[in-house]
C-alpha cells in the first residue's frame, strides 16, 4: 500500500468515525458540564491541600517553640536554662522549615503561572514533568520537616530529662537514646520507601513515557 492509498484509507476511515461519533451542541455542553479533572488538575489540587496541611504544621511548630517551650518549667517548677547550642538548633530548624516551605511555594507558583496546554509540546512536557517532580518533592519535604522536628524535640527532651530527673545514670540515658533511635530510624526509612513506592506505582509509568517523548523531541534538536 503506498502513501496515496494510505491517504484515501484514512479519509474513508476518519469520515466514517466522524459520522459515528458526531455530537450535537447539547451533548458537547453536557460533556463540558460533567467534566472530570485532568492529571495536572488533580495534582494541582493535591499540592494545594498539601501546602495547607504543611502551613498548619509550620504554625504549630512556631507556636510550640514560642509558647509551649515554657511548659516543662511550669510542670517541673524549675527554671531550665537552655544552652545556646540547643536554642540555636531550635531556631535553625524552624527557620529551615519555613524557608524550605516558602521556596517550595514560590517555585510551584512559578511553574503554575507559565503552564498552559497551548505551549509548544516540549515546554508543555517539561512543565508536566516539573509539576510531578514538585509533587514528589512535597512528600519528601513533609518527611524532612518531620525528621527535623523529631530530632529537635528529641534533643531538647533528652537535655530536659538530664536536668530534671535525678538519679539518671549514663546507662539509662544510653538505653533511652538507643530505644528512641530504634523507633525513629525504621519509622523514617519505612515512610521514605512507602512514599517512593507509592509515587512510582501511581506515576512511574507515566514519567517514563514523558521522558521517552522528551528524548524523541531532543533528537529533533540534535538532528538539525
Amino acid at each position: 500500500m503506498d502513501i496515496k492509498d494510505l491517504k484515501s484509507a484514512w479519509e474513508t476511515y476518519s469520515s466514517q468515525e466522524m459520522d459515528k461519533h458526531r455530537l450535537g451542541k447539547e451533548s458537547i455542553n453536557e460533556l463540558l458540564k460533567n467534566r472530570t479533572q485532568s492529571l495536572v488538575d488533580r495534582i494541582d489540587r493535591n499540592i494545594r491541600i498539601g501546602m495547607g496541611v504543611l502551613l498548619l504544621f509550620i504554625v504549630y511548630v512556631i507556636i510550640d517553640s514560642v509558647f509551649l517551650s515554657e511548659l516543662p518549667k511550669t510542670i517541673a517548677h524549675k527554671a531550665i536554662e537552655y544552652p545556646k547550642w540547643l536554642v540555636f538548633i531550635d531556631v535553625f530548624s524552624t527557620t529551615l522549615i519555613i524557608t524550605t516551605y516558602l521556596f517550595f511555594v514560590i517555585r510551584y507558583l512559578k511553574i503554575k503561572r507559565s503552564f498552559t496546554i497551548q505551549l509548544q509540546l516540549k515546554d508543555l512536557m517539561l512543565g508536566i514533568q516539573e509539576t510531578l517532580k514538585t509533587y514528589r518533592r512535597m512528600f519528601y519535604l513533609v518527611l524532612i520537616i518531620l525528621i527535623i522536628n523529631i530530632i529537635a524535640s528529641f534533643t531538647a527532651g533528652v537535655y530536659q530529662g538530664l536536668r530534671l530527673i535525678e538519679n539518671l545514670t549514663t546507662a539509662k540515658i544510653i538505653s533511652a537514646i538507643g530505644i528512641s533511635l530504634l523507633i525513629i530510624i525504621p519509622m523514617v526509612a519505612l515512610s521514605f520507601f512507602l512514599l517512593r513506592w507509592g509515587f512510582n506505582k501511581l506515576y512511574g509509568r507515566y514519567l517514563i513515557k514523558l521522558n521517552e517523548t522528551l528524548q524523541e523531541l531532543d533528537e529533533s534538536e540534535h538532528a538539525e
Partner: protein
Amino acid sequence: MEKEFLQIITENQGIIHKVCSIYCDLEEDRRDLFQEILVQLWKSYPSFRSESKFSTWMYRVALNTAITSFKKDKRQPDKTGISYENLQLVEEMYDTRTEEQIKMLNMAVAQLTGIEKSIILLFLEDKKYEEIAEITGITQNYVRVKMNRIKKKLKLLMTKEE
C-alpha cells in the same frame, strides 16, 4: 462566550474526532480523551488570539492533550491497533480492499510513538510541513526528516502485515 465556543466546537469537532481516532483504540479511552480535549479547549479558549488559524490552535491543544494524557494501568493500549467494535464496523461498511487498507493503517499507526502519530495525522490531513511545524513545535526540517522515517516505518509494518 459559551454559546460562541459551543458553536465553533460543533462546527470543528471533526478535528477532535480525528485525534481521538488516531490515539485511542478503545471506546472508553476515546470518550475520555474527547472530553479531556474539550475541557482543555474550553479552558484555553479565552487566551486564544487570532494570530494563528483556529484549526491550527485546535490541533495543537488536541494533540498536546492526547500526547500528554494519563492512562490508567488497567487500560493499556491494545497493540493490535484496532478495537473489536471498530473491526466489526469496518467489515460491515466497506469493500474488502478498503477494509484491508483501514485495518492495515490502524495496525501500523498503533506501532508509532505519540509524536509520530501527530505528524502522520497532520500529513494525512494534507497539512503543509510549515503548518505541521507550527502545530507540533518541531522545526520544519525535522518534520521532513521525521516524515521520511515514519513513511519507511509504516511501509515496513504494512509489508509485514501483507
